[in-house]
């Protein structure tokens, strides 16, 4: 998968592109998170707009990322989930632990 990084205000937005299902996808995702934390970027917003599918392992990586950010006293949120992925976040109750937003404006605002 491809991941582009940009900053809005003091929020680092990671634009995820592609599915999160293969070991390579997992590594790319985890490395991107590690890189941002290495730069002390602790306000992370994952943009799922270009993500079509995430399997259970991918979900595990998202959970792991949320835990690592929290360990650094940071906050991780997600936005622009496709309906299937939104359902997944719902029935796994991840929505209760990771803030999920429908658009970037609300998501960035939530960090203030």
């Amino acid at each position: 998968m491809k991941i582009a990084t940009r900053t809005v205000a003091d929020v680092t937005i990671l634009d995820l592109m592609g599915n999160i299902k293969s070991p390579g996808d997992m590594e790319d995702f985890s490395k991107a998170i590690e890189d941002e934390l290495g730069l002390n970027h602790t306000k992370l917003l994952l943009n799922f707009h270009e993500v079509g599918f995430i399997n259970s392992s991918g979900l595990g990586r998202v959970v792991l990322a949320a835990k690592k950010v929290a360990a650094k006293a940071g906050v991780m949120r997600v936005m622009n989930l496709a309906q299937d992925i939104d359902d997944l976040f719902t029935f796994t109750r991840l929505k209760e632990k990771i803030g999920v937003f429908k658009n970037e404006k609300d998501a960035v605002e939530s960090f203030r």
Partner: protein
Amino acid sequence: MPKPGFFSTLKGKTVVFIIILSTAALSTLGAMFLHTKHSLLSEFEEERTGIVEHFVIETLKPVMLTGHADIMSSIMESYKRIPDLEGLHIIRTDGVEAFTDGATLGKVNRLLGEEHFRRQLKNPVQVLPPDDPTLAQVVRTEKEKVYSKKTDGGGNITYLMLPIANEPACHGCHGSDHRIRGVLMATFGMTSADRSTLTDISWFFGIAFALLLATAILTYMFITRIMASRVSSIVKQVNTLVANDRFDDRILIDADDEVGQLAIAFNHFISSVELYRVEETKEKERLEKAVFDKTKELREKNTFIEVDLKLASRIQQKLMPEKFPEYPEVDFHAAYIPCLHIGGDYYDVFEMPNRHVGIFMADASGHGSSAALLVSIVKAIVSVMAEHISSPSYIVQLINTTLAKITPDDSFVTLFYGVLDLKTGEMQYSLAGHPPPLVHNRNTGEMTMLQINGGLVGVFDFDKFDDSVYVFKGGDRLVIYTDGIVEACNNGQKLMFGEKKLVEVVKGEKDSSSAEMTAHLLSSLDKFTGGATLADDVTLLVVDFKKQ
């Protein structure tokens, strides 16, 4: 590779060498020629001077003393006896030629029998300058003088100057004055014999020069041809040797010269190449053997792992129910297809007190041995605790607390656990991150999803899980599955089987038995994926409530 200049080649160097050698030889030859010529000329001059002196002293002088009336005829008679006399002048003390009248010259020429003196002068000719030192010396000393001068052509002319004075026998033509009146000057060149000798010498050296030059050229041609031929022979042998891959052969060495040394050096080189090839072959064989041994070892280890995994797979199969409890109210059927030997899915149906039945399904994230290990722990907890605790959410809570301590941060388990009261058809259940099971009523066609949101098991130890209740009716079909079914992709990996298709198949099989529906679903799945290897474990559990 840049082409070498001509003088960098062997041929060029040979040319330079022969040119230097030839130049040295020819220079030596030329020097010898010049030396010889000079010696001969000196010798000729000495000899000629002797002759002239003899002529002057012994012949001319006495004649001159006889009186000038007969001088001319006497001189001419003597002159005939002197070969190679080139000129004869009788000049006065002032250097002007005497006897220049035509009668005298005619007489002289008649005497000579040829026209030696062609000049017909009406006026006297200045033969020598009036102050010629030699003339003045001869007049003053009254002694003859012989000397030589170089000519413009490179030869020598010998001059003879003889004082002429009136002698008493002169019959008083000049009175009693016997002063020196003039000089007889004769000039002599080389004799024809001398010239012939010099010509012979010149021819000799010329021929020697030509022979030397020809020898140099022939030597050059010979050396270059011989060397080129031998070098070509070496090149040909090398090409043959390389073309035939015969590095054990050697080049023929025909002489111990430079070319031979070249052949010897090349033989050493190909010996090294052959040695290297032998070593390379040995190394290759050693590596091949190492690869073979390693492959064998890996194959053996792989076989061991395969056997081990098959054993693990059989053990895991034993964790699943071999047969389901039988009740008149319900019928169970299940399918489990791990994508590897062992999987991370698990299901169970077990009897509980008071006509209760436990229905369980779990799916560990990922698949393979790590996932299998996680669900084994889940199985162990359920087996021990289910008998004592009736609340499904409590059991799930217990599993979560346990797994949260031991699972890696990115691992978790999703599960469904329901306790069915066969007496009432009421099922208390808990759902933790698991796909919502379907309930399809085969009588009415109604489709219900057992929605209750529970978190992932083993992620956060503080998570709370809830129970919910569903009351089954006659004709209901409960379909519990893992995400391996809905997330199975088609061959192009673009489309997923999905929940919608699953619902369609379930609805379409309302008149089929649980086993037939299961078979049809798996068949549809296989058709959808095009027979491709599954990316995740697939588990399906169907519970049919009898139609009323």
